[in-house]
């Protein structure tokens, strides 16, 4: 795509007639296109003020400042009450590296992220494909059922599952008794608790990837399948050679959304286990909250936030680069 085609024309009818010619001159003299754009923008004050400066100020105030403040706070010690904030250099980060609970939380977050991605993406894709296959009569109703949990608050879901999973009289326990199996303590067993939470999270989140895959499937031209069938492709080959490549952008979106959502996992942990037993179900988000607001180590909590920010940024950057390439038609 030519650079000139990509430039928005900000000239107004009343602008200096020589603007275009000047641009060419400037361009020939070696000034960058970005510089030209910047000059044009400055000439249109209202666009500059409302379209650039205002959003920039809002961003700085609501996003930039908290991030910078968190980074600064991560080099200090503060209990949240006193006015004394002590600069401690890299102490919080050193402590983070030596803190076994932090590594448990990080490891749990990675487990949560990877397994919930696999669980939700694969299952959501298969469900979307089955529901679009035409063999399911009540597909819209089933789709609605899967999407309903997305509209529920995670706190409500957490409370509901706490009751369902309670030993002795929860629904799971009753089913286990019917089959003569001993009562499972899914939230009290350190080996099971994280996977139980991941399962509940997957249940509550699957509606989003399902909806996105479903929308993606409807966008694939039928002609591609017809052409594949004419070439003798089997159903499996159609899926591998047509469906999956065509859904690649959707996979990208659901993966990044899933990663960001998993990194922020907090509500379910708070309501269902409080990170316990011990630290068996701690995630980074919950660990940060406990350190900052319960144990009143705001500097240490800020250091954990910075680690989370770094992890989120990596995924966000991958997504932005990928999305930009896809928008330019770069594909893979």
């Amino acid at each position: 795509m030519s650079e000139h085609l990509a430039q928005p024309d900000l000239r107004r009818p009343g602008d200096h007639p020589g603007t275009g010619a000047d641009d060419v001159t400037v361009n020939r003299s070696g000034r960058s296109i970005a510089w030209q754009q910047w000059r044009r923008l400055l000439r249109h004050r209202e666009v500059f003020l409302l379209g650039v400066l205002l959003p920039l100020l809002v961003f700085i105030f609501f996003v930039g400042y908290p991030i910078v403040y968190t980074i600064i706070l991560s080099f200090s010690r503060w209990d949240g009450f006193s006015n004394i904030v002590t600069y401690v250099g890299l102490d919080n980060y050193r402590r983070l590296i030596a803190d076994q609970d932090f590594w448990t939380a990080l490891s749990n977050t990675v487990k949560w992220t990877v397994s919930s991605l696999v669980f939700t993406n694969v299952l959501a894709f298969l469900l979307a494909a089955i529901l679009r296959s035409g063999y399911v009569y009540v597909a819209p109703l089933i789709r609605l059922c899967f999407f309903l949990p997305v509209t529920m608050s995670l706190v409500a879901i957490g409370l509901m599952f706490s009751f369902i999973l309670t030993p002795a009289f929860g629904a799971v326990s009753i089913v286990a008794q019917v089959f003569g199996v001993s009562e499972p303590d899914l939230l009290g067993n350190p080996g099971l608790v994280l996977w139980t939470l991941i399962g509940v999270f997957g249940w509550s989140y699957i509606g989003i990837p399902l909806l996105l895959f479903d929308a993606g499937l409807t966008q694939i031209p039928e002609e591609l399948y017809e052409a594949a069938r004419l070439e003798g492709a089997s159903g499996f080959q159609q899926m591998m050679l047509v469906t999956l490549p065509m859904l690649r952008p959707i996979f990208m979106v659901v993966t990044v959304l899933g990663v960001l959502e998993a990194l922020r996992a907090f509500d379910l942990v708070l309501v269902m286990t409080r990170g316990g037993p011990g630290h068996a179900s701690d995630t980074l988000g919950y660990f940060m909250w406990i350190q900052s607001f319960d144990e009143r180590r705001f500097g240490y909590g800020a250091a954990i936030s910075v680690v989370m920010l770094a992890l989120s940024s990596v995924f966000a950057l991958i997504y932005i680069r990928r999305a930009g390439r896809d928008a330019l038609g770069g594909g893979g």
Partner: protein
Amino acid sequence: MCLVSQEYLAEAAVRVRSAVLKWHDTGRAGEPGQYGSRKIVALGAAALCAGLAIAAPFAAPALGAEVTLNVLDRATEPKQIAYIKWLVDTFNDQHKGAIHVDLNTIPDDDYHQKVSLVLKGSNPPDVFFSWEGGWADLMRRSGFAAPLDDYYKKYGWATRLTPAAVSLATLDGHQWFVPYYMSASVVWYNTGIFKKFDLQPPKTWSELEKVAAVLKANGIAPFLLANQQQWEAQFDWTAYFVNKNGGAAYQALLDRKLAWTDPRVVEAFARMKEMVDQNWFLTGVNSMDFDGTAIIFWKRQKAAMWYQGSFILAKFLGPDGKLQYPVDWFPYPSIGSTPPSVSVFAESTWMINKASQHKDEAAELLDYLVSKEAQSKMVASLGPFPANQTIDESGLPEPVRRLGNLIAHDGGYTWMHIDHALGPEIAEPFLEALQGVLAGTMKPEAAAAKTEQAAATVQ
């Protein structure tokens, strides 16, 4: 500073303005070259009005105009919210024109996190809820709590409140808060189950072991422990530690004169784990929720005893103030030669903000909080136990009255559980470690070492 009320100032401004205009109309009205004097005078009067209106709010309190007190309380349950609302409304009615209380609440679970923001905000409360012990000390050290020694003398709170309440409110030789809702930790037991198996409330640890054996043999868990929120198991831990090692050892632990890695501390962790392994508790101690599901197990008679604070009576008492279940209590049994002791603590207290401009009015509110009228109403509508020791509790069920009597007149040694006694920097790691021990993910030695590490950081 002006010493007049807002209404008076407004009225005076109007009078000045009309007098000037009158003078202007009769004397010099309409004369040319007088700088449009009518306009100037009118503008001057308007400016005077504006100036007086601005000054009035600062002047108002001096002449006894109504003072507004901001109160921040924690909201625990509907009954408690209704009671505090009643308290504020009644106080406002009784102090109409003098003091008006604006009540704000934060849910119990969020209070820890949000109170610092509110106290450091632009409109901090004059009076606010505080826990006792470590939390109260944190408030004191952070400069939020005003010392109340003078008010204790002025209102005679030291004699009106129970000895335990006064002792708990005293930190570093000064009084810092007014407790109004007291609690005591005892072993609650199902009298029906005990009667069925011909059991007597145990007085010693060996008797307790025998009772536990009988209950287990009959498919009933000796104790209920709902530790999902992590604070619950510390009740059993501290009771065991204090009754085994004595109050002096416990105090030494709190004062950092005894290390958390001391064998006695490790042994208490190990004993808790042993009790789990020997099925003294129901399955799923760490997934059972105190607020939600625990009472269902109690109601279904799955467990016979529950060591908890008397605030649990909110679950046991019906709307008519009668016990809904066959319940009585006994003190935690003595272990070895150490005499048993009961933890009596302040469940709810109010502090006056050091930055408040209305400390006298705030003290008047605190005085009403522990007055006979307010505390009687609390007993009737919220439940026992008041900090005011003169309240008539004869209408309460016998076991409750007996405990109330103990709380009101127990002048002996009392102690707080860990999360009350210590600040959150040590208490939270301790609670996490204890839960880890119960779950088997942490060894008792490691739990002790972790708590010691947290305590060392604070020092």
